């Protein structure tokens, strides 16, 4: 039986590690390669890098980060942010990433998911979605809406329907990020995560709101997620990977404990 995965998310801007709260007030907090190496040594299961570099001419810095990480970190990792085409994805995969993440680009051009899935296999393609809670309506029957461009632009697309569509298009995995919960450390959006996990037959990674190990337990059980993404609680040293994993293991979840 598969273990539940603990995934760390590293936002990277101009080659530096950054962390945002509710998608604003980003600040630089270190070197992504060093952090990745440290988390790998401590027993992390997987990494996600989001390139939040604003200017596209600096994107090659990210390829350099990917290459450095892949040369010393031997667990799977994915890269997202700013990927627009299959060629962008190919560069990242050749630099050593296991998977690519599409978010805004997939909403604007859903065919990119299918194209990347055909080119590299569904297991390489992660559909990442930023979701906010809204009033239920005809267009948004679940009351969850897709938002793009780093949380700035609501799309009037229902999140649960978009998740199902993503699977049909060929995504191999989903990252479900709650904008409402992001950075609050008050717990994951359990209803949203569960609704999507029950709808699709591909792994679901819960993101946004993880503030303590108990929150991870909740989203991996009641929230039905296959993996939980954490960021600031690791980056700021509030919990170690071992503490989180031991907590989850002690509460009966299958976790990778030998590393």
């Amino acid at each position, binding site marked *: *039986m*598969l*273990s539940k*995965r603990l995934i760390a998310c590293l936002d990277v801007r101009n080659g530096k590690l950054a962390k945002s709260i509710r998608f604003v007030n980003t600040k630089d907090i270190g070197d992504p390669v060093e952090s990745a190496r440290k988390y*790998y040594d401590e*027993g992390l*299961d997987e990494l996600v890098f989001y390139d939040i570099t604003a200017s596209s001419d600096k994107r090659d810095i990210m390829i350099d980060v990917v290459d450095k990480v*892949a*040369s*010393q970190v*031997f*667990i*799977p990792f994915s890269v997202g942010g700013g990927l627009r085409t299959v060629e962008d994805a190919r560069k990242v*995969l*050749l630099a*050593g990433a*296991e998977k690519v993440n599409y978010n805004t680009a997939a909403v604007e051009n859903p065919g990119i998911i299918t194209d990347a899935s055909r080119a*590299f*296999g*569904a*297991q*390489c393609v992660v559909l990442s979605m930023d979701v906010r809670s809204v009033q239920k309506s005809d267009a948004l029957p679940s009351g969850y809406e897709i938002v793009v461009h780093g949380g700035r632009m609501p799309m009037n697309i229902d999140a649960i329907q978009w998740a199902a569509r993503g699977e049909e298009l060929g995504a*191999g*995995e989903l990252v479900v990020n709650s904008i409402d919960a992001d950075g609050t450390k008050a717990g994951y959006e359990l209803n949203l995560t569960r609704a999507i996990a029950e709808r699709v*037959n*591909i*792994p679901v990674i819960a993101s946004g709101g993880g503030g303590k190990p108990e929150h991870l337990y909740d989203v991996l059980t009641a929230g039905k997620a*296959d*993996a939980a993404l954490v960021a600031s609680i690791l980056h700021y040293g509030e919990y170690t990977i071992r503490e989180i994993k031991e907590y989850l293991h002690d509460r009966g979840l299958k976790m*990778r*404990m*030998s*590393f």
Partner: protein
Amino acid sequence: MTAIIDYNAGNLTSVKRALDYLGISCVITPDRNDVLAAERILFPGVGHAGTSMQILRERGLDTALREAYSAGTPILGICLGTQIILSHSDEGDTSCVGLIDGDCPRFAVQNNSLKIPHMGWDGISIKRDHPLLRHVTENDEFYFVHSYYPRPGREEDIIAECEYEALFPAVIGCKNLFATQFHPEKSGRAGLELLKNFCAWDGAE
């Protein structure tokens, strides 16, 4: 020199990076002569069985693999490489390299909550000791990504198993051939240990 077989499959550079990290010299090559001259052969890969077999045949790499296997060269198969060293794969109903007898069926899980591919970290139960499993224990987990699994014809060719609803072979091998369904190059310390063991292996069980 360790040769990593290049047949346009994904993931070749990941294996090379792991060997580079371990300080083991290796070359990624599409040339059958390099494969035949190699001290040991790594046969990794992610991709489709049918497409991959076609490229292997075009490059004469399928026969090179068979010759190297007969000559006793240590061979390590990984993921797709492990599946297509068997005689047949259900993926695209493909006739494969056939170093050992067996086939490669798709997972047929009954339980709807089990997802395909089998993707993530999972443990293995070791059925028999092997030099490549030195310093690897049953507490270790490995990174899997696959929808098909290797099923050797002979029970004794199964070295370790994993469970996904039912038991399936996760490590297979015979003589100078050792092959894992999981990705040692993405499996942290335990995976690197296995790669290190392979690069010190003379091919004897």
